[in-house]
């Protein structure tokens, strides 16, 4: 019959119209900023640096190995090593970055820096309300702006963070046990004129 297809189409539209008043599936708008979608654990926007403890610069996990700088596809990470070393979470002296800048206007949120970091020092953040009026300077974040505590990391990526924490606690305990064993062990007698 002529016009049957049009009538069917109109019934479909009417069903959506009526359904939008009582069925959540037919009115899927989330009215931002009053309503926000719950964050997804794996979501990634820009990177951030993780620090342990309370002091950002003292607890930074980053050792300025520059692997993330090399692997970053748009090359938006700028690292300069610091000649002064600092102790890390097991007590050894480690290199730290003097300058660690990320240009978030260039960053394409690929997450490759996170994948290649051997020290779990850089992770993906989920902030997206990043707009500023300054086009260039405000979008180049330095290490103080990038550093966020481990508790924040745990809140964002619970499963990953808990695995990392378990591993690091483990290593810390082993290092402390090894240091204690070394301190308690008797010193070997100094051989007279022995080769050192």
């Amino acid at each position, binding site marked *: 019959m*002529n*016009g*049957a*297809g*049009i009538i*069917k*189409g109109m*019934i*479909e*539209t009417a069903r*959506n119209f009526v359904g939008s008043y009582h069925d959540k599936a037919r009115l*899927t708008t989330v009215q931002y900023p009053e309503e926000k979608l719950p964050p*997804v*654990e*794996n*979501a*990634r926007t820009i990177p951030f640096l993780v620090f342990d403890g309370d002091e950002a610069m003292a607890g930074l996990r980053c050792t300025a190995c520059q*692997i993330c700088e090399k*692997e*970053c*596809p748009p090359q938006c990470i700028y690292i300069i090593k610091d000649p002064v070393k600092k102790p890390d979470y097991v007590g050894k002296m480690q290199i730290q970055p003097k300058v660690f800048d990320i240009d978030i206007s260039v960053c*394409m*949120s*690929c*997450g*490759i820096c996170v*994948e*290649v970091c051997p020290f779990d020092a850089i992770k*993906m953040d989920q902030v997206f309300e990043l707009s500023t009026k300054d086009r260039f300077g405000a979008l180049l974040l330095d290490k103080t702006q990038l550093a966020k505590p481990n508790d924040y990391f745990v809140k964002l990526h619970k499963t990953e963070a808990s695995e990392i924490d378990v591993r690091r606690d483990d290593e810390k305990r082993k290092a402390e046990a090894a240091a204690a064993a070394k301190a308690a062990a008797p010193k070997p007698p100094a051989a007279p004129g022995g080769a050192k």
Partner: protein
Amino acid sequence: MIAPSATLELGESGEPQLLEVSLGPQHPSTHGVFRMDVSLDGETVVKLKPVFGYLHRNHEKIAEKCSYLGSIPYTDRLDYICSLTNNWAYAMTVEKLAGLGVPERAEYIRVILSELTRLINHSALAGFLLQDMGALGTPLMYAFREREKILDLFESLTGARMMCNYMRFGGCRCDLPPGWIEQTKNLVANFPKFLDEFESLLTGNEILRARTEGVGVLTPQLAVNAGVTGPMLRATGVNYDIRKVDQYGVYGRFKFRVPLGERGDVFDRYMIRILEMRESLKILEQALRDIPAGPIIDPKAKLRNLRPKAGEAYGRIEGPKGELGFYLISDGGPNPYRYRIRPPSLINLTILEDMCLGRTIADAVVILGSVDIVLGEVDR
């Protein structure tokens, strides 16, 4: 509002004037920055020249400086609607080049994600085709409502909705989070209902039929000669689906059919895509049922400093738009010597003129919509 430029030229012997129109880079129908220089005789198209390059981003040259791993996020941005199939095509080529194997679970995950990508691409296309025809966005909104559910799945797995960056050489980046398979199964179970609603809205609609039947007919001989692949080729009746021909990945294990059209016009291409969505749902059901446990990346695969031996490889997949191929030449270094992409949208565009000749300008827009181009792929 576009600013069209028009010149009226009088023929030498005072024959009818041809009106030259430039359907400019800012297009009324949103397929990206694409330009068609059309010469009109009254209302009929006499000559059509596609002009592109407005989105050229030097992808192939950048890949010669980036490492193999670093090129993966750039492949996301080729055909930005279907980022996971781009990733797979590139990963497959590098695996061929470097001689890496892929564990079974990773293959199943790749198939699942690729078929989900096919679903989102075809629903977006159906919506946009109707938007071009003036249906004011209603079918577009319905299609996008379903697409959002799939994009949420992608976000919970890969971290991003569109630029997924998920496939790695030798497998996948990370494993499926708990509950993901159940969510996907739910989605696959509910999707046919949406397809039925969509079809009842559109497929019987007389106005849609009047505007698309007989418009933009493509003969099988011309399609094969021009190198057209994908749903456009299958709508003309040629049986060529790389999933069946190459049986890459684990596609050989799934039972599914390949719909073939008859007349090769715009309506056939639209219907073929709807039918392909139904077949994709079948593949998804089987894959979600059979996915094994196991590692998701080849233990021999290196993340950094991959240096495949010198040689060349061509890897291709059946992307939602056609045959997406990557051709890599390696000279043993950390970057490829030559990195070339076979973009299906570009190759499918080459016969745009042949399809549009003799039709009115209104049809040219609808035909362009049915070719299904994404400018990120055409211009790279």
